[in-house]
C-alpha cells in the first residue's frame, strides 16, 4: 500500500482525566526528525497533496498533553517558537508517553518553527527547541499555500496571502501548446 489517507494513530485521549489540569497554552520541547509516513510520502513526490500535510503537518503529542489543551486527533493546534508559528494537526504519538515533548516530522511545517542557528557548526538546531502549543480554529495549509504564506516569494505587494485562492494539489504551470 503506497498511498495512505493519513497515518494510523491510536485514539485514547481522555479529556475527563482527573489528573489533568486544563491549560490554554502548553510550554513544550519541540523535536523534529524523520518518520516513516513522512519519508514515504515525500520521496514518492506527493508533496502537494493532502496526504503530505497529514503526514508532515502533524504535531505528535502525548495524550495527557492533548487532554490538557482539550484537543482531539486531527484538530488544529498552533505551534509557536522564537522563530515563527505554524498551524498543525494534533495527533496521538505512537511513542508516548513523553509529556512535555512534541514531535513534528521534518518538512515545511516543522521548518517554520525550528532554529536556523548553527553555532558555527553548519548544522541548524532541529531538535530540543522551546515552543508553545495552543488550540486554534485555523486550517492547516497545504504545502504550496504554506510556502506562499511563509516566504511570499511571488506574492505581489499589497496582496494578502490568506485571501488568495489555494494553489491546490497538482502542479500548476503554463504549458506550451503543442500541435498534435
Amino acid at each position, binding site marked *: *500500500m503506497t498511498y495512505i489517507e493519513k497515518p494510523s494513530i491510536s485514539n485514547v485521549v481522555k479529556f475527563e482525566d482527573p489528573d489533568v489540569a486544563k491549560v490554554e497554552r502548553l510550554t513544550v520541547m519541540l523535536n523534529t526528525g524523520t518518520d516513516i509516513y513522512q519519508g514515504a510520502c515525500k520521496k514518492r513526490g506527493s508533496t502537494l497533496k493532502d496526504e503530505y500535510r497529514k503526514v508532515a503537518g502533524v504535531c505528535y503529542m502525548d495524550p495527557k498533553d492533548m487532554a490538557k489543551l482539550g484537543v482531539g486527533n486531527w484538530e488544529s493546534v498552533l505551534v509557536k517558537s522564537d522563530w515563527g508559528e505554524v498551524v498543525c494537526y494534533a495527533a496521538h504519538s*505512537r511513542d508516548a508517553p513523553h509529556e512535555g515533548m512534541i514531535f513534528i516530522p521534518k*518538512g515545511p511545517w516543522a521548518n517554520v518553527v525550528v532554529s536556523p542557528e548553527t553555532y*558555527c*557548526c553548519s548544522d*541548524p538546531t532541529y531538535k530540543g527547541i522551546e515552543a508553545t502549543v495552543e488550540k486554534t480554529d485555523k486550517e492547516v495549509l497545504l504545502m504550496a499555500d504554506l510556502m506562499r504564506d511563509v516566504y511570499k516569494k511571488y506574492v505581489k505587494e499589497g496582496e494578502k496571502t490568506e485571501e488568495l485562492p489555494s494553489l491546490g494539489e497538482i502542479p500548476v504551470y503554463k504549458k506550451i501548446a503543442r500541435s498534435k
Partner: protein
Amino acid sequence: MAYEEPVTDYDKIVENCTCAFCGSNCDDVDILVKDNHVVGVRHACRLGASKIMEDEDQRLTVPMVRDENGELVEVDWDTALDKAAELIAGSVRPVFYGWSETSIEAMKPGLELTELVGAVIDNQATICHGPTVQAVQNVGYPLMTLGEVKNRADMVVYTGSNPMNAHPRHLSRYTTIPKGWFRKRGRFDRTLVTWDPKYSDTAKLSDIWVPFEENGDYAFCNAIRAVLKGKKLKQDVISGIPKEDIYELTEKMKKAQFGALFFGLGLTHTLSKQRNIDIAIQLVQDLNKYTKWVLLPMRGHFNVNGFNIFMSYEMGFPYGVDFSRGYPRYMIGETTTIDLLNREECDVFMVIAADPGAHFPGGALAHLANIPVIQIDIHWGPSTELADVVLPGTFIGVETAGTSYRMDSVPIFMKKAIDPPETCREDEWIVNELLQRVKKLREASK
C-alpha cells in the same frame, strides 16, 4: 492494513537493482516493469518501494522558467539552460547545494563548474551529519563494513537514530536479524540496545532501552567512559539514568565479543552537536581496550556519503567547499550553506537532487525568497515553490545508472530498469550543459 493482491501483470523483472532512498543502499531490489513503467517492487521496504513507485502527477517533465507574474512557464531546454547559465555566470557568490540523490558521475562536471565560477559546493551533510564529519576529523573513525556487523556483532546499539522509520531494512538486512557466520541464530545471538529519549519504533524492538533525557547524550556517554576508566560515578542519576543501570550497561558492553554503535541525527541535531560525536567516538575507542567495538553514522540519502568521499578525494575537504578565492577552502560555519543563507551572502542558489524547501529552517529559507533559485530535480516539491528555473532530471537507480556509496563507504553501481521520460535529461548531461554554456558566456565577456 488492507490485503493487496500481488502484482502479476508485468512484462519483465529487472533483478538486483539498488534502492535509491536511504544510506542502506539495498542492492537486492527487483523491479517489475510493464510498458516501460514500474508496476511493482519486490524486497524493498515501504520507503524504498514508495520512492520507486513514484507519484507521476508530480513528476517534473519539462523545463520551466518563472515569468514576470511569478508563474512557472514551460520552455524548451535551450531557453532554460541559457537562463540558468546566465544566472550562474553573472553571480558573485553562487552556492551549488544538493548532490546526495544523484550519482558520482553527475558530481564530476558539477565540481568543474564550481571551480570555474568560484562557487561554494555543499551537500546535505551540511544539515545532517556535518558534525559527524567534523568529529571524525577531530578524533578518528573506528569504521567497519556492514558485512562485518552481520557476521560478527553480538551487540548492536542505536542512538539518536530510529532505523525502523528511517532505514527500515537496516536491522533486517545488515545488523540484527540476519544470520551471520559467527551468529548462526541471527536475532537470538545478538543484543539490541537503543538509547533514545523516546520509546521509538526501534526501541520497541530492542532488548534494552535507555531513555536518557533530551540533550542528555553528552553526559550519558561521558558517564560510561568514566566507568570504563574505573572511576566511581558521583551522582546517583545521570541524564535521567540511575547509576546502577549505567554500571550494568557498561559491563554488558565490555563483555560483548563484537559491538557496533550506530548513531543518527539525534546526536548531531541537539545542542552539543559535534561534541556529542567526539564523545561517542572516544567511547568506542575506550571500549576497544576491552573488546572489539566499531561505529558508523546512519547516513540518510543513498549517496550523501558518496559526495563526501568524492569531494575529499578530489579536493581534500568533505563538504562546504568554497572556491571564491580560486583555491578550495573549507571553514565550517563560514563556507557552509545554512550559514551563508543566514548571513544573506549568497546571490544565486542552485539546488540539485535535494529539497531545501522541505528541509532547511525557515530562517535560512527566507533568503532563498530574495535570490534566484535554479532547481534540478525529478519531482515538484517545496523547493519548486521557490525556484525560478526548473530543470527536470532523471531518476538514478531506476531510469539512469550510476555509482553511489553506501553508508559504510562501499561503492555500489546502480543499474537502470526503465528508460527516462523523453523530455527529461540526465543530471550529468544537465550539469555538463551548464558548464559548457557558462564557459562560453565567460569567454564572450572577456
